[in-house]
């Protein structure tokens, strides 16, 4: 079993939290993991990505080869499209619908979502809005992770435990809200798939 995941977004949007939770869940499941991330200049409002590779065998490259990603999980819809060359033919894309427009020539939203819909295997959720409903806009990440959970080679219990481990240093309430967000994401994805297909 090998699973390649690209996480994408804009510097400061917190994709590394998603990465860390996936990493921990994989280790809890005794799987091998490699996860590359971006530090330094690009973190300042630029495009950022993380390559996450999970396997039950040895993983060599820290980078995912083009055309080999099983999933692109994006916290920003245009950033999702930047990594399309990595997606394999059967791969899935999961993205937040909320745009982050810090550039002057940001594309037209209608065209953007039209492009996203050209890929059969897609799930779009409004994680940011759902997070606000939960009273903490920061948990949009965990909503997205929940929405993508069924495409990960990780057990639900391990992912939830990983969220607990990751937020260990914070208050119990924070861990609880994040787990709740994860579950909301799962439900949203289910609804989306039933509605679209």
């Amino acid at each position, binding site marked *: 079993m090998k699973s390649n995941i690209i996480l994408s977004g804009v510097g400061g949007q917190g994709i590394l939290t998603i990465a860390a939770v996936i990493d921990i869940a994989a280790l809890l499941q005794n799987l091998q993991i490699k996860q590359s991330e971006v530090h330094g200049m*690009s973190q300042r409002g630029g495009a950022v990505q993380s390559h996450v590779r999970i396997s039950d065998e040895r993983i060599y490259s820290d980078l995912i080869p083009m055309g080999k990603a099983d999933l692109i999980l994006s916290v920003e819809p245009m950033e999702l499209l930047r990594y399309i*060359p990595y997606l394999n033919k059967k791969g899935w894309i999961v993205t937040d619908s909320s745009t982050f427009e810090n550039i002057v020539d940001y594309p037209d939203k209608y065209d953007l979502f039209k492009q996203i819909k050209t890929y059969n295997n897609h799930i779009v959720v409004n994680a940011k809005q759902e997070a606000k409903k939960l009273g903490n806009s920061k948990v949009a990440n965990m909503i997205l992770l929940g929405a993508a959970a069924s495409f990960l080679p990780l057990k639900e219990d391990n992912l939830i435990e990983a969220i607990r481990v990751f937020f260990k240093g914070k208050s119990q309430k924070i861990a609880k809200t994040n787990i709740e967000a994860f579950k909301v994401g799962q439900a949203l994805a289910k609804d989306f798939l039933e509605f679209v297909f």
Partner: protein
Amino acid sequence: MKNLVLGNEAVAQGAIDAGISGVYAYPGTPSTEITEYIQRSKIAKELGIHSKWSVNEKTALEAALGMSYCGKRALAVMKHVGLNVASDVLMNMSVSGINGGLVIAVADDPSMHSSQNEQDSRFYGRFARIPILEPANQEEAYTMMHYAFDLSEELQLPVLVRMVTRLSHSRTGIDFRERRSQNGIQLPVNTDRFALVPSNARKQYKKLVRKKKKMLKSSEHSRFNQLRLSDDPSLGIIACGIGVNYVMENISENQEFYSVLKISQYPIPRKKIKEIYDHCDEILLVEEGFPMVEELLKDFFDRDKKVRGKLSGDLPPVGELDPNSVAKAIGIYQERVPEVPEIVMPRPPQLCEGCGHADLFRVIKELTPETGEKKVFGDIGCYALGAITPDHTISTLIDMGASITMAKGAADAGVENAIAVIGDSTFAHSGMTGLLEAVVDESPITVIISDNSAVAMTGAQESLAVGRLKNICLGIGVHPDHVKTIVPLKKNHAENVKILRDEIQYRGVSVILSQRPCIRLSKDLKETIKNKIASLN
């Protein structure tokens, strides 16, 4: 559960477990997390391991040598361009040799994710005639630290551990092993070797040259240099450091068709190279950075068509390696992949919303019609983003501290209104000497120190000049009437423009301290800085 660590953190934990007594470093992507990990480590604190930031890479490596002189183990950490700054001590400490184990962990940044060039630090290792270790993965990076300190103490030489961005900034789960204790203080038996007056230096240099034999022997037998010859002689691959991962990614299921030599310890293991060269019809070199080994194997006039790699154009000559470019060089078929949709726009990094540098740039820009274009000399830090749109305020970005000295050179050339923009930490790192020069020469330049109280670009590390900048400038001899402080905020814009205009018009050295803490600093950190400044005044 295994420990989830970055490559950099593996180096740090490896160094702690190898029994270091101190780490010396200046922040720089992609090397920063090595030192930060040790600073955060509870066990390092308990063991009293020194981990405070140094003012620059040269002072860092010198302090590390000082610790080693006393018999204790020390780690020095820097990014590739930092080693340029520390190269003076590096070149001479290989001649003197070391006492307690000394390892220099250098992180190169091929593809220049966060750097101004992509130099290959292995050349520094060769230049200084010291052993180089180049881990292929995080686990090896951890294991190698122990080995590196042993090798350093055995050969009495500093050992260079070369990391690259993708290794430094990639996480994996690894197991840690037992920790050994630190060395006690033991001053060198003979201090002559550390006193490099010519008579001593000549003896020491001879010794250094003679050490090559021992170094080579160690490389030939190193467990990190592995050769596997295949019955199929058609292609032999020599892969250095992280390069081996991209090779194995592509051939792990068909290994019987390829001979592979992995190199992770230098000097280059000659016997092993000869074996694979003689065995195979063709050799492919896969190395991150410059084609160092490839250049040595290919003859001068490029008649040896057997050797392929970056020089032959089989691998891209610039930028980092990746699984796809290596697959192509090996000759593995790859399916076409879809292109990035046209709708996707570039999203370059930019200053954060509300950043003080941005307010400063607006002030400088307003004066451009009066001062003239192309006369703002920039420096290394977040404010370097002022060189690209939308700000487009600074015209140059070369190396740490060059803003002041380049502005001075421009003034010497007869250009009026030369302005230098430099950060607080960059000023402490390499700006002070240039300022002294300008003061002594009475150069008509305006130096703006954009002081955000932190080394912000690399993640808000402590800036050593915090609270001392004004006194430093006065001490260097800038006239007190021309050391001005401004707070870069929209509401102060008109006033700031006036102050800057007056100082630009002054025909001598003026310094403007543009002071506002980085907006990314935590509340606690802001409070700490405030208290520190109060205690200094």
